[in-house]
């Protein structure tokens, strides 16, 4: 029995929709990508267990309460700009690391916004931040 080849049209696969899907995915990735770099400052907080009383005598202390920033042993109330000016006057970057330590003594109810601004001023003027770890009573 003779077999006849049928004259069929070639099966053409329409791939134009692939490009549409792919470009939709690209748009998704572009929209979900963050191009914004974070702002801030790196801090090295010394982790040493120093004697608190000794450190307070030797190093500069900045006290922070919900209403005021107090500078030095006398606890003179200063604004953020005054604090920056005083720390700049001390020329901390030229000093030895031990003399650059600024102890930040903060009240428990101080909000992070106020704390952050003071920390950034200390950091930008060359100070090395030291925190007071309140050990719970045993």
């Amino acid at each position, binding site marked *: 029995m003779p077999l006849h080849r049928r004259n069929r049209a070639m099966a053409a696969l329409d*791939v*134009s929709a*692939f*490009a549409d899907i*792919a*470009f939709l*995915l*690209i748009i998704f*990735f*572009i929209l*979900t*990508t*963050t191009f914004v*770099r*974070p*702002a*801030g*400052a*790196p*801090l*090295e*907080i*010394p*982790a040493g267990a120093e004697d608190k009383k000794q450190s307070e005598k030797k190093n500069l202390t900045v006290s*922070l309460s919900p209403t005021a920033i107090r500078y030095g042993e006398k606890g003179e109330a200063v604004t953020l700009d005054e604090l*920056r000016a005083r720390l700049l006057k001390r020329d901390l970057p030229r000093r030895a690391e031990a003399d650059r330590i600024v102890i930040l003594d*903060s*009240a*428990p*109810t*101080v*909000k*992070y*916004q106020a*704390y*952050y*601004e003071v*920390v*950034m*001023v200390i*950091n*930008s003027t060359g100070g090395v931040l030291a*925190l007071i*770890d*309140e050990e719970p009573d045993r």
Partner: protein
Amino acid sequence: MIRRRSHRMPALVPVAAMGDIAFLLIIFFVLTTNFIKEGHVRVEPPRAVDIEQMDESPVSVVMDEDGNLWLQGAQCSVEILQNGVEAALQGSKTREVMLKIDRNMQEQDFQPVLMALSKAGATIKLTGDKRRN
């Protein structure tokens, strides 16, 4: 004058290569994208004048507006933060940890976080928004 319509084949634009190009672009974006680990965490960053733009760090810690703590996008407690950060920093080239805290948190809430990161030997990158004068 009689114009005759010429019998031309319809012009076919080969669009198969478009898909190839698009998928190459997708692969590029997938490989270069840093997905935000804490996209679901609600936090209002503090503002300060004395900050600059800096590079991202591989390890991130976030304290949200409710005081919840997130390490690498997973919720954790202060007690396990030090060990968690030490483990996350293993194999990392730097000791840098990005720390983002909600601006309304109080010192009694975030102080243990700072102490834990300090004890873990991390260089803390405190992030915030730049305030213009």
